[in-house]
């Protein structure tokens, strides 16, 4: 019963969030709040651009989505898989450590103001 509630609640949340992100374009000023970390520090965090990326993805613009946040888009299938499989999904610890390394590295590299790396910034 609680599992079913979780599935329904989780599904409703995902659909609700998708509807909002489809309707509102975060790239237009004043729409959705920006990243608090970016507002405070001026640096790009690993998540910066992810709502803009999702908005583009929902409109079918895959390359624009990648442009805003390639990491968030790449991780979506994994997150979906883990969320659906629940406790049946067992990731090897090494996988999670690698994932962590990727996120941290992405967060560092996208702040480097040198040409190919600037592509990683939103």
């Amino acid at each position, binding site marked *: 019963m609680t599992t079913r509630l979780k599935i329904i609640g989780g599904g409703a949340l995902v659909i609700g969030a998708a509807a909002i992100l489809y309707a509102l374009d975060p790239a*237009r000023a004043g729409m*959705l709040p920006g990243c608090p970390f970016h507002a405070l520090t001026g640096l790009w965090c690993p*998540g910066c651009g992810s709502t803009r990326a999702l908005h583009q993805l929902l409109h079918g613009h895959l390359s624009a989505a990648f442009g805003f946040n390639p990491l968030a888009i790449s991780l979506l299938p994994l*997150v979906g898989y883990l969320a659906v499989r629940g406790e049946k999904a067992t990731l090897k610890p090494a996988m999670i450590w690698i994932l*962590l390394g990727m996120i941290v590295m992405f*967060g560092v590299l996208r702040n480097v103001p040198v040409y190919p790396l600037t592509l990683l910034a939103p």
Partner: protein
Amino acid sequence: MYKIIGADGQQYGPVTAEQLRQWITEGRANAETLAQAEGGTDWKPLGQIAEFAPQFSAATSSAPPPLTGQPRPHVPNYLVPAILCTIFCCLPFGIPAIVFAAQVNSKLQAGDVTGAMESSRKARRWCWLAFGLGLIPMLAWIIGISVGLFRSSYF
């Protein structure tokens, strides 16, 4: 007084030994259920706690012992909310949540159930913290727009 981990992975208690025996009778807890004596730090299966062991031997004496060892308990690692908070909320607090999620799996693999549960609790705490801190600016923003503190270019 004891705390136990229920079949749903949540903590229950502290409850009296009396209450716990009642739970065992009702089938809410069994010999594999992990319990922690109040004031103690390690989690042990009820079947290995002297106070409860007789209850299981009495109940299971008519059946042969299982052939395989006890199954590895499931300890949630909260990896999904940790990733979501890191990528879609606010940086600094999602990262430790992922670290603790990884620790849960590392410790489980090493057979350290107590340690894994400790990391699991920390992972959950950091997820909520990250989520809450991501939510505050979001709420402030929505309230700000609705009372006309800022002007949205869209609404």
